[in-house]
Structures are given as structure tokens and as C-alpha cells.
């Protein structure tokens, strides 16, 4: 049986790995095998290579050319790609209310009924019990 694995995506800034590292450590402590990508392109390559059964993705995500476009919710687009690649579990990190992206979220749920989608407010991650909530939602 495969270990639950998470792909965490943040924007392509050298510092972004620094920002995500503590969260990755906390997820590893909770039994996940974690890989990190810092752009849409890198994430897609890793997802295509297989071995992942869960995706944790920041709704704001750098484009393939490593720039963050204004108004770009590329995380949602990556989620669609991941669902196409049979990733079973997709969790979004966001600073916006889920309903801000409700239409696309509804489309994702309708198009991929076999995929478990969940939203997590980044603001709450500093509370350890919310990391548990996140970890639980990433398990089937």
C-alpha cells in the first residue's frame, strides 16, 4: 500500500521553501511522505511521474514561467490536472473564503465525484489542532 504523499505548492520565490518547510515537517511528523514543488510546471511533472495519492495545493500558485499572475488561481487549475491523473485527495490552502471560488469548486466536485476535495484556511494553521484537521482530511 502506498504511503499517503502530499505535494505542497507555493509560489516560486527562493524564500517560499523556507515558508513551507515548517508545515512540511509537521505533516511528516503525522506520517506523510512529502514532496515539494514550487511552480505549476514542476508540480505537474511530479504528479505525472506518479507515486502521489494526495495533493496539497495553495490556491495561488506560480505559473509555468515561475511568475505569479495577477488574479491567478492556478492552484484550481492544477487540482483539475491532478484529478485527471487520478489523485484521490486534494486539499486547498487559501486565505480567501471558499465561496470566492465556489463556481470552479462546484465544477471540480461535479466533474470528479471520486476525488475528495477540502479547503483549509492558512490563517488557522498556527494552531496544532488545525494541522491535525488538515492531516486527517488528506487521508482517505
Amino acid at each position, binding site marked *: 500500500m502506498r504511503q499517503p504523499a502530499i505535494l505542497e505548492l507555493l509560489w516560486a520565490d527562493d524564500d517560499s521553501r523556507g515558508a513551507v518547510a*515548517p508545515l512540511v515537517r509537521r505533516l511528516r511528523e503525522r506520517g506523510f511522505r512529502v514532496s515539494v514543488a514550487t511552480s505549476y510546471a514542476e508540480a505537474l511533472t511530479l504528479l505525472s511521474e506518479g507515486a502521489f495519492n494526495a495533493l496539497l495545493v495553495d490556491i495561488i500558485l506560480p505559473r509555468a514561467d515561475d511568475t505569479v499572475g495577477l488574479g491567478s488561481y492556478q492552484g484550481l487549475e492544477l487540482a*483539475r490536472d491532478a484529478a485527471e491523473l487520478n489523485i484521490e485527495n486534494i486539499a486547498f490552502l487559501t*486565505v480567501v473564503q471558499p465561496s470566492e471560488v465556489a463556481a470552479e469548486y462546484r465544477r471540480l466536485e461535479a466533474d470528479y465525484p471520486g476525488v475528495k476535495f477540502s479547503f483549509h484556511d492558512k490563517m488557522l494553521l498556527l494552531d496544532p489542532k488545525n494541522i491535525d484537521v488538515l492531516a486527517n482530511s488528506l487521508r482517505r
Partner: protein
Amino acid sequence: MSVTTLSELLSKSPNGDAFGRPLLSVWPHIDSILRAFSTATSLPIFVFFNDALLFRTPPETMPPFCQRMLDSPETAPLCMKDGQRRAAGDVPEVKEGVQMCHAGMLNGRREIETGIGTLVILFGSKKSITDEAGRRRARVVQRVAEQAQDHAAELDAADRASDPGDFEPADMALINSITDIIERLISATAGFHFQTFNMAHELSLMLISVGFHSEDLNELVAGLKGGALTAETKAQMSESNKLIFTQCRLGLYIVRNFLSHANETKYREVVKPHFVEVNMEDLLQEMVELHRPLAAEKKIKIEVVEEKEKEKEPVALPAVLGNAMELRRLFYNVISNAIKYSYHSIPNARRVIRIRRKVPYDPGFKKERFAVAVENYGLGLTEEERRSVFRAGFRVRQAVEEVPIGSGIGLSEATKIMQLHKGEIRLHSKSLHEPGVEQGPYLTTVDLIFPYVPRRSRRT
């Protein structure tokens, strides 16, 4: 090709749902500007959003030749297809900012990036009389003649009836000004939305990262063996880390406040679908604990007053149907204000914030209500200021003088959250100093009043 509405176009985009709102809000103004411009200059206008036709002025704004082309189902698609190619930038310019259409008419072309798509405005049409333009129109008429002689004859007549012209410097200046106005309008609305959103994203990442690292550092310090650090140093480091962690969490609420104030144009629609039963007692305790270190820095104690119901059970807050994150933000705004505006420089000032549970709040009122009352001693406000205090951006005179840093959005956001939960917010400020004394302490109380269903009723 028919005109598609902006909301239809945005509903097809993954980002349109969230980022389209500011653009939608400003679009009616752009529409009016373009119509007014077209009427004043007798220039037709076509607007494409990405590949779709979003706007076109009525046929009577166009030269007779274009009117006849667009009136006919045979020739209109030729114009539309050509318009799309020019909007996509696939057609070279004949001079700076001016293209020639397939039928030899000139159009000014301007492009505006909105963040979720490109608006291309084609200002036209002026009948060019260059040889190339003549050849293009003749080709179109000839092509039509192969299918419909009558229509070709009408086009020929319409061509002769169309006045020749070109884009003069004054026309170009006008087009540039209109484009500039539209660009600024979009930048001030949609652009501001994107920028604040991305800034909030960056700031929140930074705060989360610092918060996590301070937590890790605390663990490291706690694990250090004796001798590496003195007990006193360890305690100091632990205290500092705790404060950093607290400040990060509080900072995230500032980011959320700003995001909410700047971006959420449909707040109720966005938040309401996520209502669940929220344990207000736990939430209050969580937010009080979060604020204690900050209060302690100003030597302020936060007391949650225990009150007993009929001398028996301690009163507990009922649960409410709501959004936990927004209710946290509500408490953040009220408690952090109480800390910020408590006196700290006056000797013997009362350095205490009292939080009372008032269950029920006003027995006999048409519906059952409870309240959380937050009291602090410090800066106050006049009766006149009290009427404006819930307005975004308003800060009372004493606050501006004594606490220069503040955005004035805390109470307006708190009001928004209370209204969402069908509640009410009240603020009282009672002077505790002698008349004639210029400045002195006030007792300020903020009541957060929520409707609720008492437990006995819920059981039935």
C-alpha cells in the same frame, strides 16, 4: 457572432468567480463611457474580452458601408472574424495604434490587461481611401457579388455614401484619453483587488512561517540540557517566542481584516453558506488566551467575569449558528481595540479589561438574545463620535492623538460580522473623570449581541 455578457464570460473562467467581481462592478461605467464616446465622436466601438465580442455600439454609429456589412447574415461573420483577428493582434498596424480591417476601414486599437483577461477596444471605423483600402473593399464587394448581386450593389452604393477619413492627432489623443480613463478605472478596482489579494497571500505566508519557526525555536530551547542556558535565559527566550507566535497569529487577523474590507464585495454570499453551530464559549476563551500576552505587555489584565445563574451554575455562552473564522475575527477586533485604547501612561489607571457574559441580554425583547460585553478603561469618545464609530475609516479624536497607528476598519468589520450573524453591536463610553478636566479615563463597553434559541426551546 453575438455579443456575450461579461458575467457569462467570467463564469467560464476558473478565476472569474472571485476575480471577476471587481471587473463586473466597474463594467457598467466602462460601458457608459464607451457609449458616450461613440455618440460624441460618431465612431463605432467594438470591445473583445479575450476572444469573445463583449460590446459593440449600435449600427447607426457606423459608416453606411459597415452598417450594410453588419446587417447582412452573409457578410457580418466576415467582419466579426476579422475583428477577432485584429483583437488577437494578428493583423499588423498601418500606423501606430491603427489597423486596417478586411474591408479597408481604419480602426484604432487599444489593449487593456485586466488581470483575468485582456480587453481589446477597437475604435473605428474611418473609411480609408488609400489604394490598399480600395482594393480590399472591391474584393469584398466582388466576393459578395458571386453570391448575391443585390447585396453587392447595396454595398457599392453604401461605399460611395461613406465619407472618407483618417485618424487625426486629435482623434488619437481622445482615444488615448478614454483608454487611460478605462485603464485607471480597472486598475483602481480589479487591479487593487489583485494586488491586495496577492499582498495578503505574501504577508500571511510570512507570518505563518515566522510563527512556525518561533514554535520550533521554543521546542528547541525547552529541550536544551542544563548548563547550555541559564533558567532565566530559557524563560526569557520562551517568553519572547511566545510573544512572536502571538503577534504572528494576531497579524494574520489584520491581514484578514484588510482582505475583507478591501475585497469581499459579496460578503454575505461568500460567508453565509459556511455557517455551522459554533461553540462561543470555546471561541471566546481561545481569543482571550490569544490576546493575553499582548495585554500583559501593557500590564493589562483580561478578566473573563464568572457570573452565576440564580446563584447556581456559572453562566455559559450559548452556541450560535455562524462562521467560526469570522467570529474569531469579531473578537479579535473588539479585544485588540480594548487593549490598544486602554490607558497605559497614566499612573493608577485601571489596567483591566473585563469580559462579561450577559445571558440573556435583554429579557422581554421580541427574540432571545445574549451578549458578550467587553469593557476597558482608557480613551473615550463623545456622543457625536459614537454615531460615526462603526463607519469604515473613522477614528475618534483621542484615538488619533494618542494612538497614531490604526486603520479605523476594526469596528466596521465587527459590525459587518455581527450583521451577518443577525446580531447587533453597541458601544458606550462613559466618562469617569471630573467635569472640566480635559482628559481622563472613560469606561468603554462594547456589547456584542447575538440572537439564540434557548436550550429549553430547542428541545421542544
